[in-house]
């Protein structure tokens, strides 16, 4: 496999784990706009333990996961008393505090970042991503997952039905934070370098958009969203310059066209977001859509558990 392909697979796997981390809280009706902060916790924990103490990779990953989960718990427990916009603000603020603290800390290399000695091949994140995907599908199939989705739809009625709303919200949020931390640890070991500037507000926004545009009704959504938005920039890498050349050639001179600005990718993501929110706010993949697909494939009805109805 070429270095280019394995690089894309690794980042795809990391983004999928990251997206599932955000998904667990969004599926419970809680927007998490601090993804970069939780990922940074996992990445720096892994990088620091690996660089300073030479911990083996699995141990640094585990520490990053747990530490990020603990941070998630510490944020969620007080904040989830309130609803809606408070959590958005708190998670956003958390990410900024983490970034600011790392930037000012000499222990963690400040603006210079940390080199990570423990390198993992591309298949490590891919295998872990597959495992995480199965895990999330499993969680969503349990009564706990049912409670998560119920809270997403109607918190008050969930409470009257006997769902321990706050407990479910805190646990789901913390598990999500832990997964985001895991993705950070894998990032550190795959790219063997972390710098805090990479874990910025745009990253938090980006991953939340993956999840929402993919759709939060099923665990397929984040998978689709993360895949689409990881591969989109790769596709645009060739498409954008040729589009620009084509457009310029319509007006005559096609020689020596400067490559288009990187920022166009963000503009395209922004436009997609706004259009999706207008035309299909429930995201790309919805339950009625999946049900429809199943009906069209007669043999599939006996295959999965969900369809044995």
């Amino acid at each position: 496999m070429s270095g280019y392909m394995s690089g894309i697979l690794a980042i795809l796997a990391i983004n999928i784990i990251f997206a599932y981390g955000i998904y667990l809280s969004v599926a419970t009706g809680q927007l998490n706009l601090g993804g970069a902060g939780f990922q940074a916790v996992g990445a720096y924990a892994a990088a620091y333990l690996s660089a300073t103490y030479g911990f083996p990779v699995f141990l640094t990953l585990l520490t990053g996961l747990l530490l990020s989960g603990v941070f998630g718990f510490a944020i969620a427990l007080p904040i989830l008393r309130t609803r809606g916009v408070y959590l958005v603000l708190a998670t956003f603020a958390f990410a900024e505090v983490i970034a600011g603290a790392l930037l000012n800390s000499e222990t963690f290399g400040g603006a210079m970042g940390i080199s990570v000695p423990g390198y993992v091949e591309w298949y490590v994140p891919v295998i872990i991503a597959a495992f995480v995907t199965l895990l999330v599908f499993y969680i969503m199939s349990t009564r706990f997952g049912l409670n998560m989705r119920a809270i997403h739809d109607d918190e008050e009625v969930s409470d009257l039905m006997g769902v321990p709303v706050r407990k479910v919200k805190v646990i789901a949020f913390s598990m999500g934070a832990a997964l985001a931390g895991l993705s950070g640890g894998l990032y550190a070991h795959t790219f063997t370098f972390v710098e805090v500037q990479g874990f910025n507000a745009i990253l938090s926004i980006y991953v939340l958009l993956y999840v929402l545009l993919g759709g939060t009704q099923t665990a397929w959504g984040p998978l689709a969203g993360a895949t689409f938005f990881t591969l989109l920039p790769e596709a645009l890498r060739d498409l954008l310059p040729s589009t620009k050349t084509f457009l310029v050639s319509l007006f005559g001179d096609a020689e020596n066209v400067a490559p288009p600005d990187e920022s166009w990718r963000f503009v395209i993501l922004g436009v997609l977001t706004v259009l999706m929110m207008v035309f299909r706010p429930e995201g790309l993949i919805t339950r009625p859509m999946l049900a429809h697909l199943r009906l069209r494939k007669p043999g599939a009805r006996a295959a999965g558990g969900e369809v044995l109805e």
Partner: protein
Amino acid sequence: MLLVQQLVNSIMLGSVYVTVAVAFTLTIGILNFLNFTIPTLFMLAGMMGWALSYYGLPFGLSGPMPWPLALAVGVVLAILASLLVERFTFRYLKTRYGDSTEHAIPLVSSLGFLLILENLVRIGYGTEERRFVGPDADLTLNVGGLFIRVPQLISLFVTVLIVIFLTMLIRRTRIGRGLRAIAENPDAANILGVDTKRVVPVVFMLTGLLCGLAGALFAVNYGEVSPLMGEDIGTKAIAGMVIGGLGSIWGAVIGGLIVGVLELMTVHFFGADTVQVVVWGALLLTLIAYPSGLLGHNAIGKGKL
């Protein structure tokens, strides 16, 4: 004396945050909507003000404009952009089930607009800081040994006027009654005969106006603009709003000033690098320990019921 001078400076600095914080708190208080385009509108007014006074209209449609005209056009552009955001966040919004993700749709759309507007400005004018040549920003009054820059004094004055104007608008006018009714309960407001389709755009016009003015005043005061200028101000305005209490205009005023003081005191005692941690930390602590802030009521952001 140095500390008093610092305090005066912080109030001047805080007044920029106040205007933007009021814009945030207005949309949250009335529409329960955290509008992430607000920092972008601020940046848009400043950057377009600079671009129009430096280059003139795009595609050579006009020569460089005089700076007051350029800034005025910048403010108008911010208002227009804000109305465009309204179209796509509230006008065409389909809420069918009223679940939690649907309540987040405007917020998510506003994140989309943030990406679009900021990156279009980057594509058009690059990412560097630009020098805005306005009036003499260093014109200074000496009041009993304290130095006060005249443009800053004017900014402070404009800010105070804006806040008083807004308070009057909300308390005394028909539009204000409509706004308050929507803030209370959108469905009931409809039943009581408030035309939400006409009142909601008013919130966005005010948002655009506030951010535009703040951006223009910032350009005049600091003489520098960049596509990134909104992020820093947005941060501090959000912190100011939270400290003051979500949905409270006077809370945003007090909160914005507190953040101004907090920032310059942090710079004074710990250095500039720690400002981000201190401001966001204050925000986070307020949210955890005292979510209703200084003047807020805890009813904002509940979603429904």
